[in-house]
């Protein structure tokens, strides 16, 4: 019997280490330590209900486990074979407990390629990776294929870059391989910066060897013997596991000189980023690694011609690499049979926002947003109404009800006014104000703009100020026109991807939620009741009994009135904190 415990950052933060320790002690206390293994794995993806403990071979899926539950799991499940009912997952729609992961809606529609080992193996043990055919793809490539043959397999598979751009990976490798130089580099872009996205972190935490193996394969293809992982320093657990994995691979001779006795040399070093969003852009990333300011530069020259230290460099994202070993072992035809015509394979998405099953999922390309949000994601929290989903992070756009049945792939999302991005999906419900959402993303891009080119540095700031005015109720109809014009100019004239995409949230909300902007500007009302400046707290004189509870709790003394007589709120003083609504027992106070 194996007890798998999630060791991803999310579950670790909820004491999964302590649970593992407690389980081990309990097992030892019952003299079962030889029969039952406790294994820390990577992320299971079901972060909403973490920490997760999965019992194998029966696939029992325990959610929100606490260290004090360890003894019950051992005494009941392990010793007596009775499942601990209260820890089983309860389907929010059917209100029924589900015993094993195979019957959970969350897992049923998923297809795991990049995440194949996450939540299955212990990421700190290379043996478990090898037992899952790890490093066989590298061995096969080095002994059976030429670099060009390998590139052809990747090209044929149809794999496209998972970091956001969607550039064909095989083609990228081919360009880098054709540029002759005395030294070339393979770079793994682990500078995941979209708010709410954590797929790269989870892969590095849950299956670091798959990325190492793929980087070596790429090195063989393009003729590089050196790999660099650019990872943000705020991912300490991913860094730790990656370091352990690199050391273990070196120890086994799977990194270093003369790998598999073929004379191929390859080694990997880590480079830490300080968490700047712009450094996810490949030229900025390379400059940052060189010790320069993290600013993008004009392309051409492309990194494949002149990248790190002026040498040909191939940059791929973590998730892209994680797909490579599976493609080599199972073949290009297998991979290209999954997905849509122009977007092959699967994509990992991070579900966040007002959705029941917050977490990490991997689905075949071509699945619809409806399936992702309502079947896998379990629908909207608290039974509210779906309003929009933001894909592609700050560079993407908001998609609405009418896009729910569009198959998800690179091209369809762009056609719908958003983009794939790195795969963040933030779900919004009827309570979210779309002007505020656009403002939130602009706030992020203003903060993260490197400042090198003026459209991005100054333009985004002006966009933000316009949005700020609208949410305060000072906007005009001309402002809406100005928003659109300025957005177009920023998109057309910015130097790098950051500025070229930063107005997307504004444009897509203008397109899909124009009426909300108009409501803010003309009626001076926020339909979702989010913009504080546009709200007014009013006491209904009919319902108010004059108990004075609101007046006593108002922090700014904005409420006046005699005992047992209706009270009034002075809007000039009111700070809209909501304290009075909470205290009123007669529902006499409302927001208008």
């Amino acid at each position, binding site marked *: *019997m194996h007890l798998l415990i999630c060791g991803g950052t999310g579950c670790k933060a909820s004491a999964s280490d302590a649970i593992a320790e407690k389980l081990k002690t309990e097992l030892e206390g019952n003299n079962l330590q030889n029969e039952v293994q406790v294994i820390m794995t990577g992320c299971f993806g079901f972060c909403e209900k973490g920490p997760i403990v999965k019992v194998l*071979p029966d696939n029992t899926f325990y959610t929100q486990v606490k260290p004090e539950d360890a003894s019950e799991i051992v005494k009941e499940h392990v010793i*007596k*074979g009775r499942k601990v009912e209260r820890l089983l997952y309860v389907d929010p729609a059917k209100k029924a407990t589900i015993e094993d992961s195979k019957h959970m809606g969350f897992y049923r529609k998923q297809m795991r390629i990049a995440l194949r080992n996450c939540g299955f193996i212990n990421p700190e043990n290379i*043996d478990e990776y090898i*037992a899952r055919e790890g490093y066989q793809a590298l*061995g096969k490539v080095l*002994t059976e294929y030429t670099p060009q043959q390998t590139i052809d397999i990747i090209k044929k598979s149809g794999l496209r870059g998972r970091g956001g751009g969607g550039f064909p990976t095989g083609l990228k490798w081919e360009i880098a391989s054709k540029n002759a130089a005395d030294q070339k580099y393979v770079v793994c872009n682990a500078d995941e910066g979209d708010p709410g996205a954590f797929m790269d972190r989870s892969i590095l935490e849950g299956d670091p060897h798959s990325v190492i193996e793929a980087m070596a394969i790429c090195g063989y293809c393009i003729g590089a013997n050196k790999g660099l992982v650019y990872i943000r320093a705020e991912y300490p657990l991913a860094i730790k596991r990656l370091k352990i994995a690199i050391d273990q691979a070196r120890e086994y001779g799977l990194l270093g000189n003369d790998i598999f*006795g073929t004379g191929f040399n390859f080694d990997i070093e880590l480079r830490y980023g300080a968490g700047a969003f712009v450094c996810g852009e490949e030229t900025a990333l390379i400059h940052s690694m060189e010790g320069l300011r993290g600013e993008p530069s004009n392309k051409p020259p492309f990194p494949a011609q002149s990248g790190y230290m002026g040498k040909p460099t191939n940059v791929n994202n973590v998730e892209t690499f994680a797909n490579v070993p599976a493609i080599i072992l199972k073949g290009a035809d297998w991979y290209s049979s999954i997905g849509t015509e122009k977007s092959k394979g699967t994509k990992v998405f991070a579900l966040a926002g007002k959705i029941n099953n917050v977490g990490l999922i991997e689905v075949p390309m071509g699945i619809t947003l409806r399936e992702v949000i309502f079947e896998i994601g379990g629908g909207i929290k608290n039974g509210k109404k779906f309003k929009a989903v933001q894909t592609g992070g700050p560079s993407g756009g908001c998609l609405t009800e009418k896009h729910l049945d569009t198959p998800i792939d690179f091209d369809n999302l762009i056609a719908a006014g958003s983009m794939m991005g790195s795969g963040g999906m933030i779900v919004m419900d009827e309570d979210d104000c779309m002007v505020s959402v656009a403002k939130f993303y602009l706030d992020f891009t203003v903060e993260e703009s490197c400042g090198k080119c003026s459209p991005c540095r100054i333009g985004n700031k002006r966009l933000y100020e316009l949005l700020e005015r609208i949410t305060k109720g000072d906007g005009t109809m001309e402002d809406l026109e100005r928003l659109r014009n300025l957005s177009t100019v920023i998109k057309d004239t910015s130097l790098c991807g950051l500025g070229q995409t930063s107005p997307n949230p504004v444009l897509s909300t203008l397109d899909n939620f124009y009426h909300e902007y108009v409501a803010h500007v003309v009626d001076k009302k926020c339909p979702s009741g989010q913009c504080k400046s546009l709200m007014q707290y009013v006491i209904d004189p009919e319902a108010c009994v004059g108990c004075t509870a609101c007046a006593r709790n108002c922090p700014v003394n904005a409420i006046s009135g005699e005992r047992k007589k209706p009270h009034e709120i002075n809007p000039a003083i009111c700070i809209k904190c909501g304290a009075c609504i909470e205290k009123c027992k007669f529902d006499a106070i409302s927001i208008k």
Partner: protein
Amino acid sequence: MTKVKSLADLKKMKESLQAKIDLREKGDAAENLIQIKVAMATCGIASGAKNVMEFLLEELEKRGINAVITQTGCMGYCYAEPTIEVKLPNADPVVFGYVDTKKADEIIEKYIKNGELVDGIIPVNYESIDNK
């Protein structure tokens, strides 16, 4: 410290490491394997179910039979403990009573290997609790 010197080396390593995660792979494809449940409630354990479980685990591996062995609670046939439920792929589950290591050996050799029924099946109309 062993170095992996060739692809053949790696494949050999994989074979020997396979057993470590075998149980997890099986959990993923349990429907297609022989599944054995050993009743391990107080009554079962008192009658020696733990020995039977260990015997099954060791012997099935030794004899190269791919099976998922789990424990379950009291099946209700306390008079006949230790009891085990055996489910061959595409067959209905069968419960055997009074299973000691000798009986377990017979079950492996006759029922699991050849599908021949052996004495000790209780009751004839048994249905696994999973189906109810």
